């Protein structure tokens, strides 16, 4: 199927989401508030901790807010574009409704990932951007257009890694049908992305920075805003994004072999 057809399918899905959101406006409002409040909770935590200390692993309060904002931005983008689809994938595998996707003439992972959007998540990504922008302002930084563009590219690379981890955790349902809500374990991994790289020592550094790269997904873009672009960091992040995406596709396809319709 040509790429233009995938774009048309995605646009049709986006149009369906907008129409559905307009039908359930109250629901949209509640979920937007939910997302916003969760973001507030995270920012409040940083503020409370910094009322007792001036630095965490060498990061000042507003440097930490940039890191937190970047983490929230990546996560809101993930929630907005993909989360609902993978949340439903677990249920569909258990119920056999996953057949619906198998019958579609296109790349299965694309079809599964992009059927619905969450506009509340996407809306709150602007709040996360505002948090980053405000923190940049408070630190007196003046990033140029090129820095902002690089930041955006690195955030997208981070999004690919988070997406891959979501695919991996959701694919576990192919093997563990009785483990309801296992896709939610993604959020546990994502908590590491709010911590500065320098806080990780010893084995934690090896596991969380090198093996499971969620720390890198936020630290590299945040550092680019704070200290300028470094090619080695960017290459590191992009290479990790490619490797993790390939692993996610491989595991998803292996999991598919175990799917046996409604009896699975």
């Amino acid at each position, binding site marked *: 199927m040509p790429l233009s057809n995938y774009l048309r399918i995605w646009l049709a899905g986006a149009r369906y989401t907008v129409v559905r959101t307009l039908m359930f406006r109250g629901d949209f409002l*509640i979920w937007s508030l939910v997302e916003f409040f969760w973001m507030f*909770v995270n920012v409040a935590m940083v503020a409370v901790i910094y009322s007792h200390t001036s630095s965490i692993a060498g990061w000042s309060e507003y440097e930490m807010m940039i890191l937190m904002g970047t983490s929230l931005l990546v996560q809101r983008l993930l929630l907005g574009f993909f989360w609902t689809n993978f949340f439903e994938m677990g249920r569909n595998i258990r119920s056999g409704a996953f057949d619906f996707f198998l019958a579609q003439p296109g790349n299965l992972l694309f079809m599964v990932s992009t059927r619905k959007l969450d506009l509340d998540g996407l809306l709150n990504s602007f709040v996360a951007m505002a948090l980053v922008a405000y923190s940049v302002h408070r630190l007196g930084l003046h990033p140029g257009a090129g820095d902002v563009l690089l930041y955006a590219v690195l955030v997208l690379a981070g999004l690919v890694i988070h997406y891959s981890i979501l695919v991996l955790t959701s694919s576990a349902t192919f093997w563990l049908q009785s483990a309801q809500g*296992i896709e939610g374990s993604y959020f546990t991994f994502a908590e590491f992305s709010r911590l500065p790289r320098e806080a990780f020592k010893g084995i934690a550094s090896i596991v969380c920075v090198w093996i499971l790269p969620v720390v890198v997904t936020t630290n590299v873009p945040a550092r680019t805003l704070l200290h300028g672009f470094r090619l080695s960091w960017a290459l590191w992040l992009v290479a990790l994004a490619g490797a993790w995406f390939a692993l996610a596709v491989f595991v998803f396809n292996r999991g598919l072999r175990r799917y046996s319709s409604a009896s699975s």
Partner: protein
Amino acid sequence: MNKYRQAFLVGLQGNIVYRWNFAVRGVFSLVQLAVVFILWGAVYAGTPSVGGFAFGQTLTYFTLLVVLQFFTGAFNEDYQISEEIRNGLINQFLLKPIDYFLYRLSIFFSARVVSGAIVLVPVAAALAAFHGRLALPEGGWRIAFGVPALAMSAMIQFSIAYCFGMLTFWLLEIQGFVILSMAVESILGGQLFPLDLLPPSVFRAAQLLPFYYQTYFPAAIFSGRIGRGLATEGLFIQLFWALALIALARLLWCRGLRRHTAVGG
């Protein structure tokens, strides 16, 4: 009471089916503890004391918080109750001499027995990992105060979940409210940071809310973050909230049933 004992036993069997859910949660609670260890380790790297407490005390608080939640937390009771109302499964309870609140409470306790038993394995792993870093305070009174605080914490958490489930009588979708409530509980229940790190006036205000007694209060008693005076006062406020929430749960059930339409057989 025999019927609720049977409900408890059926609940045990039902929850054992989902043992993998609890096991996965248990393992991931270790990951959460790792996040706590790394974050607070970095915070304490620059200072020996935060809010008057050493690193070991704060680590003990978070470890207890995570473990105790498996014995007292309401994980998805609100969703289960909501589904039973939405699908008309509560109709059977309207025709039988069984109290729905006590029935759900029996199921809740059975779930906590299963989740509590399964979490013991990750707890043993956590104790091995943090051995020598945890700092449990002395004082037998902490056990005497902590156990009833734990029991009332379970009642408060269950009653709040039950009340959210009851909202299904009025609303089509309650998940948004449930997740919003989780956000409030995470911050005012002391799950993100010990509440005693808040400014004194805010900490004092938090003590008047039920969220304080959900998770922070029992963990703070056992980990030594609050003294005997505050614990005594807290037990009375916690008792008030437990009774008030049970009364609210009863009221919502009675009011909700007036709106309920039982269709079919």
